[in-house]
C-alpha cells in the first residue's frame, strides 16, 4: 500500500516539476495550454475527481513571493490531471481584505486562512461552506483531533489544515554547547539552570526582540503562551484562550511572571543588544542574530526563523546555529505550540470540492514538501501524519515535523491567534510591549482583561 502510494506521489511530483520546468522554459508568456503535459504524468490518484476541464477554482491567500511559487507548482498535478484551472491570488493585505470580500458577497472559492480566530469571523459571515465528507475523512485520517477542532466552528467542521509551524523552539549555537559541555535541557528547570550557568560566566544568555512594526509585542505573546501551556497544562490553556478564566487570574499571572523571570531579568537579557528595554526596540528579525556573533546563547522563536539568518549560515545540528525543543516541566511532558493555515471554501461547486479534497491528502502534503525543499530549500511543513519526513531536506523542517508527529505531543494552536482581535491583535501586543518597558505584570494583565470584548 505504502509503496504504491509513494510511487504515485513520485510520478505526480515529477509531472508537476516537469511542468514547472516547461513553464520556466517558455519564460513570462501567459500560461496557456500545457494540458498535454498530463499525458506523461500518472493521474490514477486524480481519477476520483472526474473531468473538470474548463472549470476554474480561485484561491486567495496572504502567501506572496517567494513562497507562492511552490504552492502554485504543487497544484499543477491537479490541474494537469483533472483539466481544472487554479487561479492563485496572493495579497499581503489578505487578513483584512478577506473579511471585506466575504461580507460583500464576493469571496474567493478557497481562502488559505492563517488563524482559527479569523476562520471563525469568516464563518460568522455566513458565506463559508462546511467541508465535504471526503475532506473530513482525510482530516480524521491524517491529523490529530486537536487540529480538526481548530478547523471547526461551533462543532461543525469547515476547513482542513494546510501548512504548519512549530513555535516551541529555542535557537542556540551547537558549537558553543559542545565547547562548554552544555547539555540541551530536557526540563524547564534544566533550562533555568543552564541560563544561570551561562549568566555566571558574565555572558547574557538570552536575546530577544519584539519589534514588528504595528504588530510590535507579538513575540512576548508566544513566550507567555509557551509558559501557560507548560505550567498550567493544555486544559487551562484552552480555558484561558476561550476566556473561561479571566486574563488576570492566577494561572496567566504565573505564566507572565515566569516569562519575566527570563525576559525581565537583567542577568539574562539582552545578549549583544542592550538592557531589558532594548527588547522593545529590537526587531524580531534581529533578536536572535547575536547568537552568530557569540554575544548571546539562547533565543526563543518559531521554526520560520531559520530563513532569517544571513545567507550561507549553516542551520543544522552541526552548523553555526540550530534549535532544540523547548522542554516542558517534566521530561515526559511534550507540549507543543504552533501555528498553521486552513483551507476554507466559500463555494460547493464540484471542482472546488475536488480541489479542497486534494489539498487535504497526504499526496498534496508530500508534493508540496518536495517542491518547497527543491525550490526554496524547505521552510514548509505540515502536521499531516502522511507527510514523509524523508521528503524534507532542511534540518529544521525535519526537527519540526518530527516534533509535530511525535505521538506524545500535545499540540496547541497559538493562543493570541484565536483570541478576539481586540485582544489577540491589539491589547495583548500593546500591553506586552508596555510590560517589557516597565509596566507591572498585574497592570498588564488587568488592562488586557479590560480590553476583552464584553458579550
Amino acid at each position: 500500500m505504502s509503496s504504491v502510494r509513494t510511487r504515485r506521489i513520485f510520478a505526480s511530483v515529477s509531472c508537476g516539476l516537469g511542468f514547472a520546468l516547461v513553464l520556466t522554459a517558455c519564460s513570462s508568456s501567459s500560461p496557456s495550454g500545457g494540458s498535454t503535459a498530463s499525458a506523461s504524468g500518472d493521474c490514477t490518484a486524480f481519477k476520483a475527481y472526474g473531468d473538470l476541464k474548463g472549470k476554474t477554482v480561485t484561491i486567495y491567500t496572504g502567501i506572496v513571493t517567494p513562497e507562492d511559487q511552490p504552492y502554485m507548482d504543487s497544484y499543477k498535478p491537479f490541474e494537469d490531471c483533472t483539466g481544472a484551472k487554479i487561479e492563485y491570488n496572493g495579497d499581503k493585505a489578505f487578513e483584512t481584505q478577506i473579511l471585506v470580500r466575504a461580507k460583500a458577497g464576493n469571496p474567493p472559492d478557497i481562502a488559505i486562512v492563517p488563524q482559527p480566530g479569523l476562520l471563525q469571523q469568516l464563518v460568522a459571515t455566513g458565506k463559508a461552506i462546511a467541508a465535504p465528507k471526503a475532506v473530513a475523512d482525510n482530516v480524521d485520517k491524517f491529523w490529530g483531533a486537536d487540529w480538526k477542532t481548530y478547523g471547526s466552528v461551533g462543532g461543525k467542521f469547515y476547513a482542513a489544515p494546510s501548512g504548519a509551524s512549530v513555535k516551541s523552539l529555542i535557537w542556540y549555537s551547537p558549537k558553543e554547547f559542545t565547547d562548554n559541555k552544555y547539555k540541551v535541557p530536557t526540563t524547564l528547570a534544566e533550562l533555568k539552570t543552564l541560563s544561570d550557568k551561562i549568566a555566571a560566566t558574565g555572558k547574557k544568555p538570552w536575546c530577544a526582540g519584539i519589534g514588528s512594526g504595528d504588530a510590535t509585542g507579538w513575540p512576548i505573546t508566544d513566550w507567555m503562551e509557551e509558559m501557560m501551556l507548560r505550567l498550567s497544562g493544555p486544559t487551562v490553556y484552552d480555558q484561558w484562550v476561550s476566556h473561561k478564566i479571566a486574563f488576570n487570574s492566577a494561572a496567566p499571572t504565573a505564566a507572565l511572571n515566569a516569562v519575566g523571570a527570563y525576559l525581565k531579568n537583567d542577568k539574562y537579557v539582552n545578549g549583544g543588544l542592550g538592557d531589558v528595554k532594548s527588547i522593545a526596540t529590537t526587531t524580531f528579525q534581529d533578536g536572535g542574530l547575536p547568537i552568530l556573533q557569540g554575544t548571546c546563547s539562547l533565543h526563543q522563536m518559531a521554526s520560520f526563523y531559520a530563513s532569517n539568518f544571513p545567507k550561507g549560515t549553516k542551520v543544522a545540528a552541526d552548523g553555526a546555529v540550530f534549535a532544540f525543543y523547548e522542554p516542558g516541566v517534566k521530561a515526559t511532558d511534550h507540549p507543543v505550540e504552533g501555528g498553521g493555515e486552513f483551507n476554507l471554501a466559500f463555494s460547493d461547486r464540484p471542482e472546488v470540492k475536488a480541489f479542497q479534497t486534494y489539498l487535504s491528502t497526504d499526496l498534496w502534503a508530500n508534493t508540496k514538501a518536495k517542491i518547497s525543499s527543491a525550490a526554496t530549500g524547505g521552510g514548509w511543513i505540515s502536521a499531516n501524519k502522511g507527510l514523509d519526513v524523508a521528503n524534507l531536506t532542511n534540518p529544521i523542517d525535519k526537527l519540526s515535523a518530527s516534533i509535530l508527529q511525535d505521538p506524545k505531543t500535545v499540540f496547541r494552536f497559538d493562543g493570541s491567534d484565536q483570541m478576539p482581535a481586540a485582544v489577540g491583535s491589539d491589547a495583548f501586543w500593546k500591553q506586552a510591549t508596555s510590560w517589557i518597558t516597565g509596566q507591572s505584570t498585574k497592570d498588564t494583565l488587568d488592562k488586557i482583561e479590560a480590553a476583552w470584548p464584553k458579550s
Partner: protein
Amino acid sequence: MDVSVKFLTMALAILLFVAVVGVILFIAGRSERRSPSLVAYVFLFPSLLMLSVGLLFPAAQTIYQSFFDAAGKAFIGFGNYQTIFSSSDEILVLRNSVFWVVVTPFVATAIGLLYAILVDGAKAEAPAKALIFLPMAISMVAASIIWKFVYEFRPDQQGVKQIGLLNQILVWLGGSPQQWIVNSPWNTFFLIVVMIWIQAGFAMTILSASIKAIPNDVIEAARLDGVNAFGMFRFVTLPSIRPAVIVVLTTIGIGTLKVFDIVRTMTGGNFGTNVVANEFYTQSFRASNQGLGAALAVLLFILVVPIVVYNIRQLRASEAR
C-alpha cells in the same frame, strides 16, 4: 487580468465620463435659456452628489456608528466617548495629541519665520531656502525612517558601535547612549521634532513670500524713523504678515492633529506615544472595535473644525483687505 481587458475597462470609463459631462452640458445649455441661475445649480449638482456620496454620507455613517458597540450591533449611547475620556490608555492618547498640537505649529512657525527673516535678501537666499524646504518634499514615512536611524540605539557594550547619529554624538561628548524613542514622555517630543523638521520649510516659504510683499515705502518710513532690527520685526514685519502667520499656524495645526504616519512608522503607537489618529486606525482595523474607532474619528473631526473655521475666517479677512 488581461491587458486588453484593462484597456477596455479604461476606455469604457473614459466614455462614461465623456457621456456624463455631455449630458450635464446639454442640460445646462437648455436651461440657460430659461433661467441663468439654474445653470449654476446644474453645474454644481455633480460635485454636490459626489461630495455627499464620498464625504457627507460616510461622515454621517461614522457619527452614527460611534454610538454603537465594537461589533456595530448594540446601541450604547455615549459609551465610546466615555471610554475615550476615562480609560488611562485613551487619556494618554489625548495628552499626546495635546503635546503635538501645542508644540508643533508654534515651533515650526517660529523656526520658519526666523529663517525667512535671516535669509531674506542674503547672498545665497535661494539655495538656503531650498535646503530647509527639502524635507517638505519627503514623504512622512520616509522622514520617519530617516529619523528612526538618527535615534537608533545600540547598547553601551564592548565592541558594539552606535549606528544612530544622535547617540554617536552623545557618546563623543562623553555621555552614554539613550533609548530616545522608548523613554516616555520625552519620546513624544522626539517624534514631534520630525514633524517640525518637515513643516518648518512650509512655514518658511509662505512667510518669506509675505515678507517680500511688504511695501517698500513702509519699510523706508520705518528706517527713517530710526527703528532697530528688533523694532522693525516687532512693529513692521510681524503686523504686516500677521494673516499669513495665522494661516501657517492653523494649517500646521490641522496637519498635526491628523498626524498618523510618523507615529505609526516610528513607534507603532507603543511606548506611550500614541495619538488620536493612530489610535483610531488601530481600534477600527486591528482591534475591530468599530464603535470606538468611529468615536475617535468623530472626536478628531470635532477638534479640527474650530481650527478650520478660524483658518477660513482669517483667509477671508486677509482677502477682504
